[in-house]
């Protein structure tokens, strides 16, 4: 009887022990890294057209999309002020990201060849607030897209639409929560073709270039809303248009871009391509658009930019330059540029700084003032540089 009992108990204990062992021997796997959708929205270059030579640009046709190229943007920025002196800066940008150069014919209306991204920011200078909103959509089902005639680019209910047949006037609309704008823009100068007749090289490799033109001075009036306030505003906008397939060259990590409107009627655009070692790439360039619209090209050597102050983001810990002295000896101008607000940093979906600035300086012997926008891309860690380079080169 004892033996039977011992055997029984041993069997029971063994079964229990087996169960315990089985329970704690489950395999565990370490999680693997992953990336977000925006960062992964890159495509192979293959099949997309290259910006490998100048080509004639025609308007309003070229305001429309160029889906044979991988990347394209419609970039509106501007400085606005209300009758009571309140000042605002705004940015409304539409990015087209080609997902494939050769789309397959498909039955579903959701089939898309482009992804669209839009960034909308409102800088409330007096309120010291920077409101940034972004959207993402596929180019399908009329959710997002662009047309040439009549000109229109939209992502859901954010849009830029021609209000004149030749697109010399446009209307911008964007609203997200309690931040909104509705602005009417009127061109004051003809399109300024950047680089070589609109062909803007970014590196020595053939095709590392974009087609690039700007509407440097757009008379602007309309309304902005922040919270419960709806404010009538007037001001000046700038529109940058660029499309390309491969722009940043080897060794380039980012760029600084300046779009400045001076009170003597001249508009200045400068981009500085930065190399990994901190040097300025020789393919950096710019332009000066005279009061009458004639464009003078600037090469890297024509421009000196000196960062005089730095600002470190509390959100991302990234250090950005935040005050500059720009001199263009050929044009006899020296300009001191300062942000209207230090914190105009985008933290998602991609990290960059894009903000309204004021300009003071001298043109020849006379003092000159102005305003504009500055864009700083590729500061901070390597991931941010890479993703930014991929999605919006």
């Amino acid at each position: 009887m004892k033996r039977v009992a011992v055997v029984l108990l041993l069997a029971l204990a063994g079964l229990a022990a087996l169960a315990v062992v089985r329970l704690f021997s489950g395999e565990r796997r370490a999680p693997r890294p992953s990336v977000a959708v925006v960062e992964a929205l890159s495509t192979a270059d293959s099949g997309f057209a290259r910006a490998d030579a100048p080509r004639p640009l025609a308007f309003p046709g070229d305001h429309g999309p160029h889906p044979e190229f991988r990347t394209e943007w419609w970039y509106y920025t501007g400085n606005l002020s209300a009758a009571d002196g309140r000042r605002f800066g705004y940015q409304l940008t539409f990015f087209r990201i080609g997902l494939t150069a050769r789309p397959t014919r498909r039955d579903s209306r959701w089939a898309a060849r482009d992804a669209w991204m839009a960034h909308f920011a409102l800088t409330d200078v007096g309120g010291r607030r920077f409101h940034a909103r972004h959207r993402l959509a596929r180019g399908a089902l009329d959710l997002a897209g662009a047309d040439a005639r009549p000109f229109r680019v939209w992502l859901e209910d954010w849009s830029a639409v021609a209000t004149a047949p030749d697109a010399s006037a446009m209307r911008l609309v964007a609203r997200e929560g309690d931040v909104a704008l509705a602005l009417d823009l009127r061109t004051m100068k003809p399109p300024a073709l950047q680089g070589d007749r609109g062909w803007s090289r970014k590196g020595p490799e053939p095709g590392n270039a974009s087609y690039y033109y700007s509407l440097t001075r757009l008379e602007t009036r309309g309304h902005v809303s922040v919270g419960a306030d709806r404010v009538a505003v007037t001001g000046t906008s700038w529109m940058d248009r660029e499309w390309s397939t491969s722009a940043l060259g080897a060794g380039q990590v980012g760029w600084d871009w300046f779009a400045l409107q001076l009170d003597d009627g001249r508009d200045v655009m400068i981009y500085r391509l930065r190399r990994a070692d901190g040097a300025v790439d020789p393919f950096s360039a710019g332009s000066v658009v005279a009061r009458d619209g004639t464009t003078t090209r600037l090469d890297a050597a024509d421009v000196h930019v000196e960062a005089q102050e730095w600002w470190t983001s509390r959100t991302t810990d990234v250090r950005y330059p935040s005050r500059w002295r720009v001199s263009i000896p050929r044009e006899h101008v020296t300009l001191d540029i300062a942000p209207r607000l230090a914190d105009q940093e985008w933290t998602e979906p991609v990290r960059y700084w894009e903000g309204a600035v004021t300009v003071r300086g001298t043109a020849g012997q006379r003092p000159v003032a102005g305003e504009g926008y500055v864009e700083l891309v590729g500061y901070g860690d390597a991931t941010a540089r890479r993703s930014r380079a991929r999605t919006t080169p």
Partner: protein
Amino acid sequence: MSRTLVRASLRHLLAHPGQTALALVGIALGVAAVLSIDLANESARRAFEAATDAVAGRATHHVVGGPSGLPDDVYRAVRIDLGIRAAAPILERDVAVPDVPGYSLRLLGVDAFAEHDVRGDLRVEGGGDVSFAALVTEPGTALLAREAADELGVQPGGRVVVRVATTRHRLAVLGVLPRRVGTGNLLVVDVATAQEILGAVGRLDRIDLVLPDGDAGVSIVERIRARLPAGADVVPAGARAHALVEATRAFRVNLTAMSLLALFVGGFLVYNTMLFSVVQRRPLIGTLRALGVTRREIFVLVLGEAAAVGSVATLLGLPIGVLLAHGMVHLVTRTINDLYFVVTVRDVAIVPLALAKAVALGLGGTVLAALAPAIEAASTAPRTALARETLELRARRAVPALALGGLGLIVLGSAVIHIAGRGLGASYAGLFIIFLGMALLVPVVGLGLVRVLEWPLAALLGPVGRLAARGISASLSRTGVAMAALAIAVAATVGVTLMIGSFRSTVARWLETSVQADVYVSPPSLVGNRPDATLPRDLVERLRGVSGVAAIGTSRVLRTDVDGVPVTLVAIDPPRAGAGAFRFKDGGGQAWEAWQRGAVFVSEPFAYRRGRAVGDHVRVRSDAGDVELPIAAIVHDYGSSEGVVLMSRATYGRLWRDHGVSSAAVYAGQGVDVDALVRTLRTAAGDDEVLIRPSRRLREDSLAVFDRTFAVTGVLRLLVVTVAFVGVLAALMAVELDRARELAVLRAQGLTPRDVWWLVATETGLLGLVAGLAAIPVGIALSALLVFVINQRAFGWTLEFSLTAAPLLQAVGLALAAAALAGVYPAWRLARAPLAEALREE
């Protein structure tokens, strides 16, 4: 309590290791049964909810369409016109992986650009560079969950073949989704790809929304509703999943009750062991009382012993239960897949609450079972132990009182069942009370039987036979309990077996009447036998043209909301108008005319669950919006435990823009050979992956599903039998070993070892026979309760009670076998024990 008392108690437990061990095993297995079922149920439920939650993300509401989905443009309206930013289009379907039988994936068609605000950005392992662009632009591309990729052996760049309805699709796997709770079976495709392979171009299954709480959310819901086409609606997220889980409740309660049965039998075993140990120790207890130990201390001592045994047993039972749960969860999951919805369970969730419940039941059950023996021990008079004869006399006198108590319990249990109404838990409680009452009746029935059997035994075996029969009644204090324990255990298995048998024969008869055509054509289905997909559009027409086909009937099976709760709707187009395929429970008469005018039939479970009767109306969500339809009849249908709503195809055609057919019933012409017809139909079906089965096969397959669904019950029955067997072994061995001295006296008086052998064997055999016979009426009563009360209340089904001889004979056989086995060791030991030693008092 003094240390001496504890030591005395411990010594007793260790001095009778066999009894103690058997009691341990009984309780441990009982605890293991309860725990394993609890864990399996809970794991299946959690896996389903985790999968639902993972797919729902932060969604608070869904915009849903009718059975054919939502038009694409509703998404534009919601997102742009109504400005609801946190909105994402979804197509979701369970798809089979035909290369791996029984394996399914949850295909989720998403718009990666809209996911951010609802589920968070779609992510892949390693952040594949081209995956998202290719996912959106290239047809037939997908992302696969890490778990599924491992299980199917697919790498990024590889392919996975899935079957949607009757067509196979090869999908290129672009990337692997990282592990996340509940996403193990996801196959994510672009919304365009999903529309294309699901044959749903222009339609969405739903739109997921994240809406604010409170009034703001309510007003947005109203704004959306105002913009929706007929048949579409905004529903709270989780409502459907909740309804699905709720549908399995009765199934889960039944399993829990079955597992409790194992513990119940285990408890009886403890009762037997404790009572026996008290009886054995009466002299000791009497002496202790004389030495000044109080009643209270004796009471606590016995309960303490039971608690000690219960603790050890529970501790052993817990890990066994968890181990058992790993097997159980597969059976439970398979049944849920067969009957309710598709769910994949990868892990057994070790739920603390389930562990706590098992501990409470194990300990509580043991202590409760020891209560009566403890009271008995405490009532022992000090100084002397009662003479054995006095004790037995008292036991015999108690029999009628016990029987009376048993009758009282039966009345009480019946009252509980009556009051319980539709409450399943309370009904089970009533059932257990009745069961306990019957156990108390066993000794009186048993004694009667023994008395009846005494004469034939005496005639057959001479004095040994008479001694055996008398021995049982003479040591009733122990044999009575053993008999009751054995009878209860056997009755439990008889009851469950008869219930399953009745259920099965009911289903078989229903299949005979409802499966009337000769050949059935249906798409392969993930959920049991219920077709949840449609046949290729032109297939039915093609089949109609096959020679030998006299007529074809069709049915369309789909899920839709009826009175706001999703249920299966079946639209039938019988080739020969007639009500012959239905067995009416209620209605009939004018029902068929009403059916043709647009009324519906509902199945019994539907009527029961929703409290509907003939003449009531149901609100059915159709493509034309909500419509009120009258119920013309309640029909018998055992295909769905949540019930079905049936309507004519003509009615369906008026309310839905849908020409789909879920299955076709083919009637052969006069003199056409059915097997030959199946072959011709197969040829006509061409490449379409459809099941073409003669009615015989369909019935067999349906019964196979039925049998699968009762596999868990079968396992539980086995556990109950094991516990019962252990219990009988313990009880009978104890009884016989206790008689060592008595038998030694008999031997001293001239009984040969061979006679002792016969005596012990006959006595245990007689006990077994008596218990087996007593178990038959108890088992029949139990199964009747299960069939007519429990099943009715759990599912609303009327089952026909079918009494077959086989389970009854098996029961008696089981009892006899257990008894015979239990007799072997004591007989062997008693026969060869040295006489002098055996004659000494303990």
